[in-house]
C-alpha cells in the first residue's frame, strides 16, 4: 500500500511539475502576478510529492519488501541497513528517483529563497526548472518505474552488487547528483535571463551560491568516487579516464569555468554572454553524463541500464534541452548588452584565459569520450581512447592552467601590472624551480613529468600564500590582522581552492616516485616495499553479515620496529557468487602503504601487490581543500541570498518602531 502511495505521489508530482512549467511562464508573459506565483507553490508541492515517493521506496528497501521488483533485484535481507538504504540508488530506477528528488529540492530552494528576485525572472526560472522536472518524472514513470510489483513475491532478494556494498555508495552518488543537478538551477536562470532579454550583476549574485553549492558537491563527489575506486579495485589506481568518470569531469570543468566567469560578471558586469553560454554548457554536460551512464551506451560497472527505450527517452530529453537552450541562446544572446571594459592584462583577461583553457580541456574530454562511439557508428571501426590521449590533451591544458593560476589570482581588476605580479611571485617560482631541479638531479634518469608537476604544485601553493601575504602587508605589516578580517570571505575561499589545486597536483606528481612490489607472501618472510618491510603474520577466515572473508594480518616495519598493521582481505559474497578485493591501507604521514591480495594458494602463500605511495592522500585532501574553499566563499555576506531583503525589512521595522 505504501509502495502504491509512493507511485501515486510521483504521478501527482509530475502533474504539479507540468503546471509549474506552464502557468508561471504564461503569467510572466501576461504580467499576471497571481499566475507567476503559482510557480512557488507548485515547486514546493513537487518537492513534497517527490520526497514522499522517495520515502516510500526507502521504506520498501529498508523493510526488505521483496514484492517490489526493484527491492528483490537489488537488495538482500542480510545486508546491513546502511547498504539497504544506499541500495535505493544503487540501481537505475532508484538513482533516477534520487536525481528527481534533488532536482525538486533545488527548485524548492529557489521558491523559498528567491523572494528578493524580480518576479518575472523567478517565474521564468521556476518554469524552466519545472520543465526539467516534468521530463525526468515522465521518464521514470514511463520507462523506469521503481515501484513495479513482482508477483509472486520471492522469499529472498538477489542482493546488491558486492562492488556497491561499500560506504562509498552511500556518499558518492548523492554528492555527484547534488553537483550535476545543482547546475540545473544555473541553467534555469540562464534560460530565464535569455527569455527576459536582460541580465545583470544581481542575477550573478543570486546564481553564484547555487553554482558554488553544485561545484563543491561535484568536487567532493568526484574525489569520493576516485578514492572509492582506489581502495576497492585493488591496484591503487584512482582515475581511469573511464567514460563514466569523464561524464562527471566534463560538468566539473564547465562549472569551474562558469564560477570564474560569473565572478567577473558580478564584479565588473562583463562577459555576460559568455557566462550564460557556460551556464548552458555546464548543465548540458550534466545531462550528457546522465545519458551516457543511464542509457547503457557504455558498459561498465556504473551502467545499470540496458534497456534501449530508456536510452532513446533520455536522448530525447538531452536533445530537447540542449538544442532548445542553444537555440534560445543564439536567438536572444545578441540582445544582451555588453558590460564593462578591461585591458587584456588584468584579472578579467586572466579569467578569460582560464575559461578558454578549461573549456578546451572540457572539449578534449568530450571528443575523447564520444569519438570512439561515433566512429563505431559511422564506420564500424573500433578504437580506444585511453589515458595517454587524455593526459596529452586535457592533462597538458590543465597543467598550463595551473601555471597561470597564481598569476591571475595576483592580477588587479580592470588593468593589471604584470611586472609587479612577477616580482611578487618570484619567490614562489624560484622555490618551484629549485624543487624541479633537485628532483631531476636526485632521481636521475627517472620520470620527467613528475618533477615538473611537483615544481608547479609548490609554485601554485607558495604563489597563493604570497598573494595572501602581500594583501595583508600592503602598506605596512602592522595592521595585518585587522586587514585579514577586512578581506572578503570570497577571497579566502578562492585562496583555499587554489591552494587545494596545488595540493592535488603535488599528490599526483608524487605518484611518479612511488614503488611497487609484486610478490608471493609467506608467513614470517619479510617483503620490502619502498622504505618499509611488510611481514605476513597470519591468515584467518572471518564471517561478515552477508559474506565470508579471507584476511591476511600483516605488520609494517621500519628499521625492525613495527609501525602499524594492515589487513587486506578477499570477500566472497554467497548471494551473487562474487568475490571482491578489500585492499589493506595504512596511512603513514601523508603517504599510504597499500596492499591487495589474491586468493591464497594451497600451501598458504598469498600472491600480493604492495605499493608505497608517498603523499598520495594529498590528491583527496587537495580536492577537499578546494571544496572547503568553495564553502567559505559561499559564506560570504554578499552571497547570502535574501540578505538585502531581510536588511530592508529590518530597516522598515526599525522605522515603524
Amino acid at each position, binding site marked *: 500500500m505504501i509502495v502504491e502511495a509512493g507511485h501515486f505521489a510521483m504521478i501527482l508530482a509530475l502533474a504539479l511539475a507540468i503546471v509549474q512549467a506552464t502557468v508561471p511562464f504564461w503569467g510572466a508573459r501576461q504580467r499576471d502576478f497571481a499566475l507567476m506565483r503559482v510557480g512557488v507553490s507548485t515547486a514546493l508541492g513537487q518537492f513534497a510529492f517527490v520526497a514522499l515517493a522517495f520515502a516510500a521506496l526507502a521504506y520498501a528497501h529498508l523493510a526488505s519488501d521483496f514484492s517490489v521488483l526493484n527491492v528483490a533485484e537489488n537488495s538482500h535481507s542480510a545486508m546491513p541497513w546502511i547498504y539497504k538504504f544506499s541500495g535505493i540508488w544503487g540501481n537505475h530506477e532508484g538513482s533516477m528517483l534520487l536525481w528527481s528528488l534533488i532536482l525538486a529540492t533545488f527548485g524548492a530552494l529557489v521558491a523559498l529563497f528567491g523572494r528578493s528576485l524580480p518576479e518575472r525572472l523567478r517565474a521564468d526560472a521556476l518554469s524552466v526548472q519545472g520543465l526539467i522536472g516534468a521530463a525526468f518524472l515522465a521518464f521514470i514513470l514511463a520507462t523506469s518505474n521503481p515501484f513495479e510489483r513482482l508477483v509472486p513475491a520471492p522469499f529472498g532478494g538477489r542482493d546488491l552488487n558486492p562492488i556497491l556494498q561499500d560506504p562509498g555508495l552511500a556518499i558518492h552518488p548523492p554528492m555527484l547528483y547534488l553537483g550535476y543537478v545543482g547546475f540545473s538551477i544555473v541553467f534555469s536562470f540562464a534560460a530565464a535571463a535569455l527569455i527576459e532579454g536582460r541580465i545583470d550583476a544581481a542575477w550573478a549574485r543570486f546564481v553564484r551560491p547555487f553554482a558554488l553549492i553544485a561545484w563543491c558537491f561535484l568536487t567532493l563527489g568526484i574525489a569520493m568516487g576516485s578514492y572509492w575506486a582506489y581502495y576497492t579495485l585493488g591496484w591503487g589506481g584512482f582515475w581511469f579516464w573511464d567514460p563514466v568518470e569523464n561524464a562527471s569531469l566534463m560538468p566539473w570543468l564547465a562549472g569551474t569555468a562558469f564560477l570564474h566567469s560569473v565572478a567577473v560578471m558580478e564584479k565588473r558586469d562583463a562577459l555576460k554572454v559568455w557566462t550564460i553560454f557556460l551556464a548552458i554548457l555546464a548543465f548540458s554536460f550534466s545531462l550528457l553524463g546522465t545519458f551516457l551512464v543511464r542509457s547503457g551506451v557504455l558498459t561498465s560497472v556504473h551502467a545499470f541500464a540496458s534497456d534501449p527505450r530508456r536510452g532513446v527517452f533520455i536522448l530525447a530529453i538531452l536533445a530537447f534541452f540542449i538544442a532548445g537552450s542553444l537555440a534560445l541562446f543564439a536567438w536572444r544572446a545578441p540582445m544582451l548588452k555588453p558590460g564593462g571594459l578591461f585591458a587584456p592584462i588584468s584579472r578579467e583577461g586572466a579569467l578569460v584565459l582560464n575559461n*578558454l583553457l578549461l573549456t578546451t*580541456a572540457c572539449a578534449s574530454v568530450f571528443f575523447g569520450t564520444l569519438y570512439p562511439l561515433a566512429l563505431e557508428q559511422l564506420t564500424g571501426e573500433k*578504437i580506444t581512447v585511453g589515458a595517454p590521449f587524455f593526459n596529452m590533451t*586535457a592533462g597538458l591544458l590543465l597543467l598550463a592552467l595551473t601555471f597561470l593560476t597564481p598569476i591571475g589570482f595576483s592580477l588587479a581588476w580592470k588593468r593589471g601590472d604584470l611586472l609587479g605580479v612577477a616580482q611578487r611571485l618570484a619567490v614562489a617560482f624560484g622555490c618551484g624551480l629549485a624543487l624541479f631541479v633537485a628532483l631531476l638531479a636526485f632521481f636521475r634518469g627517472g620520470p620527467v613529468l613528475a618533477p615538473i608537476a611537483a615544481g608547479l604544485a609548490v609554485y601554485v601553493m607558495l604563489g597563493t600564500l604570497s598573494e595572501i601575504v602581500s594583501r595583508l602587508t600592503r602598506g605596512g605589516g602592522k595592521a595585518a590582522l585587522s586587514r585579514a578580517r577586512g578581506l572578503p570571505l570570497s577571497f579566502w575561499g578562492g585562496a583555499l581552492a587554489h591552494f587545494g589545486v596545488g595540493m592535488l597536483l603535488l599528490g599526483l606528481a608524487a605518484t611518479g616516485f612511488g614503488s611497487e612490489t609484486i610478490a608471493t607472501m609467506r608467513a614470517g618472510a619479510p617483503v620490502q616495499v619502498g622504505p618499509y618491510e611488510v611481514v605476513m603474520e597470519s591468515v584467518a577466515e572471518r564471517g561478515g553479515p552477508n559474506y565470508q572473508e579471507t584476511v591476511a594480518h600483516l605488520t609494517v616495519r621500519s628499521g625492525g620496529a613495527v609501525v602499524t598493521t594492515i589487513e587486506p582481505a578477499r570477500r566472497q559474497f554467497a548471494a551473487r557468487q562474487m568475490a571482491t578485493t578489500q585492499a589493506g591501507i595504512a596511512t603513514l604521514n601523508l603517504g599510504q602503504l597499500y596492499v591487495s591480495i589474491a586468493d591464497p594458494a594451497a600451501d598458504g602463500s598469498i600472491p600480493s*601487490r604492495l605499493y608505497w605511495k608517498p603523499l598520495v592522500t594529498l590528491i583527496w585532501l587537495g580536492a577537499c581543500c578546494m571544496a572547503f574553499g568553495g564553502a567559505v566563499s559561499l559564506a560570504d555576506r554578499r552571497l547570502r541570498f535574501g540578505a538585502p531583503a531581510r536588511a530592508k525589512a529590518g530597516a522598515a521595522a526599525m522605522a515603524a518602531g
Partner: protein
Amino acid sequence: MRKALRLALFAFVLAAPAAFAVQPDELLPDPALEARARALSAELRCLVCQNQSIDDSDASLAKDIRVLIRERISKGESNDEVRDFLVSRYGDFILLKPPLKPETWLLWLSAPLTLGLGALAIFYATRRTAVATPALSADEEKRLAEIAGVAAAERPRKTKR
C-alpha cells in the same frame, strides 16, 4: 544480438574468476625485460574492460596477453614488433593511445582546433566590444569630470581603518 553479446561481456567482466592483475608467477627474471613488459602492458587495453590497461586488469584475457607479451619479449622481439603483432590480431582497439590516421585526425586535432577557434573568437569579441563603445568626446569628458568632481565633494570622506 549485439545487445546480448554486450550483456554477456558485461556479465563476464563482473563474474571474472577471482584472477588478479600482474601475478608474481608472471614476472620475468630479467628486471630490464620485465620493466619493458610492464611499460608495454600499460599502453594496451584490456579488451573486456572499460579503459583499463592489461597491466591493471584482473580479467583472465588480460593475463593471457600479459603472458604473451612476456614470451615474445623473452624471444628477443622489440616493443614495436610485439605491439604490431597485437594490433594485427585485435585491431587498433587494443591501443589505449589511438594511432594517428585519417579516421582519428579530427580526434587528435580537436584540442588544438578548439583552443585556436576559442582564441580567435575572444580576439574578435574584444575588438567588437572596443568598437561598439567609442571613446568619450572632449565634451563628454568635461561633463564626466564635473559630475565626478561634484560627487567627490558631496561624498563624506571615507575614514581610514
